[in-house]
């Protein structure tokens, strides 16, 4: 009996003192403890590929670890909401991207008020902008963009494109393409870029627009052929592939990836975070680590991002409005 009592006392004391230790609030510089970086996508995507090196290098400049936490679900909304509703103290950041814009604007266009919106965040910076490219299976008879356009025009509604999912950036890329040229195609959505590319490589779709990051290795391995790039300039690792602009219409599509924080984060904290982000994107370790996303590493600072984000939202909203009108009835 006595033994039990003192044992219990010891344990209680232990737990109690543990809590004391952490509650110790000496005012020190931000950050005092590890920072959480919410990734609203499932592990292993482009978000992770950029966020994790960022986290590793940022630790150098911040002095405290940055831990990436995946909170996937509802096309990213679960993570977005968690990020917006987190305490605005700079210890919880969220990975912002075009996916956010799309999913939030879609709500707006359909007359619903999204639970969080752009103005619930303050922009910290951009890590990269990844463009999409138009690819066809390697065995396809289409060797140039002109071939593709001609063939598709000749047989309306006979050709299929696959996408990584409805309203994903890669889906938008294909939609921009077909609308710019006035084409009619069938669309088969898949669950993610991997399955979409697998389908294309196997010849189960006629074309697709996927991120350069994932398409280029397959092109080099002769599993598919990239016809054109949906970016303002050619991509360095595939210098022979023209941009859409060069061959006819200016069709651009891509996804930006960056960091955002909850909107009421105090200004000095935001400044510090922006500073660190800028430093990281110039850090050679980081640049080396994402060399393969390489060419289009455009970093922007917080203010640039805010403007860019607004512009993007406007532009995407136009496209989404068309979808809504034509009855791409998603979540009716």
């Amino acid at each position, binding site marked *: 009996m006595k033994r039990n009592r003192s044992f219990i006392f010891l344990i209680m004391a232990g737990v109690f003192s543990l809590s004391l230790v952490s509650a110790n609030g000496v005012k020190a510089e931000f950050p005092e403890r590890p920072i959480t970086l919410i990734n609203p996508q499932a592990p292993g995507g482009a978000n992770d590929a950029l966020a994790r090196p960022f986290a590793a290098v940022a630790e150098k400049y911040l002095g405290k670890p940055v831990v990436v936490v995946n909170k996937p679900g509802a096309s990213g909304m679960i993570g977005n909401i968690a990020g917006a509703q987190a305490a605005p103290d700079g210890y919880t950041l969220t990975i912002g991207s075009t996916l956010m814009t799309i999913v939030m604007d879609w709500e707006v266009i359909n007359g619903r008020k999204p639970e969080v919106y752009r103005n619930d965040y303050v922009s910290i910076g951009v890590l990269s902008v990844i463009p999409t490219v138009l690819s066809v299976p390697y065995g396809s008879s289409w060797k140039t963009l002109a071939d593709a356009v001609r063939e598709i025009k000749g047989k309306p509604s006979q050709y299929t494109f696959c996408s990584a999912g409805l309203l994903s950036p890669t889906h938008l890329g294909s939609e921009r393409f077909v609308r710019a040229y006035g084409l009619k195609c069938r669309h088969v959505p898949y669950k993610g870029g*991997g399955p979409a590319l697998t389908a294309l490589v196997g010849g189960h779709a006629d074309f697709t627009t996927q991120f350069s990051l994932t398409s280029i290795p397959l092109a080099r391995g002769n599993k598919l052929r990239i016809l054109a790039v949906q970016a303002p300039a050619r991509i360095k690792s595939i210098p022979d592939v023209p941009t859409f602009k060069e061959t006819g219409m200016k069709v651009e599509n891509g996804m930006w990836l960056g960091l955002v924080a909850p909107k009421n984060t105090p200004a000095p904290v935001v400044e510090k975070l922006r500073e660190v982000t800028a430093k990281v994107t110039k850090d050679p370790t980081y640049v080396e680590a994402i060399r393969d996303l390489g060419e289009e590493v455009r970093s922007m600072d917080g203010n640039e991002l805010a403007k860019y984000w607004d512009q993007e939202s406007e532009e995407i909203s136009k496209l989404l409005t068309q979808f809504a009108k034509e009855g791409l009835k998603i979540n009716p």
Partner: protein
Amino acid sequence: MDAFIDLYNGFQNALTLHNIYLCFLGCLWGSMVGVLPGIGPLAGITLLIPATYGLDVTGAIIMLAGIYYGAMYGGSTTSILMNIPGESASVVTCLDGYRMTQKGRAGAALFIAAFGSWVGGTLSVLGVMLLAPVLANLATKFGPTEIFALLLVAFLLLGSLGTGSFLKTSAMVILGMLAGTVGMDTLTGVYRFTHGMRDLYDGLGFVPVAMGMFGIGEILSATEQSMVREVYRPRLRELLTNWEEFRASIGPILRGSGIGFFIGLLPGAAHILSSFVSYTVEKRLAKRPEEFGHGRIEGVAGPETANNAATGGAMVPFLSLGIPTTPAIAVIMVALLIHGVRPGPLFISENPKLFWSLIASMYLGNLILVALNLPLIGLFVSLLRVPFRILFPVVLFICLIGTYSINYSSFDLIILLGFGFLGYFFRKLEYDLAPFVLALIIGPLMEEAFRQSLMRSGGSPSIFWQSPIALGFFLIAGVLLGLNIMRGLKSGGRGEKEASSVGS
């Protein structure tokens, strides 16, 4: 043969002390996260990525791969001992594995699981080594139409999982498929059965459902009976299989390796099917299939081998095309990218040293794992000696935290509890749980593949008979259906419940 020379060099590279150490760490870590229910290879790999920054790329990938297939070894432990599937692929192991534990043969089950896992893992590495490029091409030939045909075969096999009446098993299959439709339909963006709850947009989630129905349901049932359960005190001899059991397992292990490897190759979320298909195949081939579900060792040997073989198979599309087919491999890919290595079709030719070191380390890793897991059998079995009234709260606790850690979502915990109740409920009513849980996965996949095929063909059903692969599977499906009907007519619609213990 060239391959073996390269392999030899790969071994030289992989067998540096440093790399062996990393391989060991990876396997150890993988086993640990595999044993913990809910936390799977994905979490394990994700957690260790920061640790790999300081390593060279060979060491990093050796370690991460070790975690990946290591977790497959650990996943069967809780399935066998406590009827709690450690992760999706281990659900089928619960069926006979747990029964064996209840009969006092836990050690044998764990042993054959470890042994089968070793054989399956090693054979699949052999497959990767020799056949990767060829198989990758085969895998890409599986488009929606072919996948639908394959899943149709799997669907027809679901009926074999039941030990009760045909009607009841069918009911569970349909319920499972219905439960699988919850969430956003990826093809049209329409939400089904979500009632506006954002947490349901992505569906119910296999792990909370399976852990809930099997594990929590089991606990809830068990606490209804007395708190003092019979404790088995196995002797050393009983920690291993006896000769008869071992001999019976050889066939399932060999077949499981092939089945698992092949299914692992395929794109899509079909990996859990590897253990499931192996189980149903073994059941059909057995002389006394009605004993399955009551503690046949083939029901553990086959599936466990298959799910380890599937990890090897899953590496094939990744290594030869650069496309990850499971989330865990996707994370490994990110790790490679961070180290400056580009996965893709040219991965093998551009990084031969890395590739062969990886292959060599996979052989090594499988050996390490079996060496790690065998002695632990005694330890695990002795866990069963812990009085139930201490054990079950701990198990509840671990399941809760494990489930939470998947998506950091409390809603998943609600699903866990809810399905725990359903598991308890169905047990009382004598309905089988396994068909439900597997239909949960197969149903939506089948529907998606079917509709994708029709979308591709613009609505014309001719696409289904234009593909030779699909036709092949349809043929198999037809044969299976015929067999099912014949059997159904013979036994008059009743099940195989003869000398069975109640429920499952």
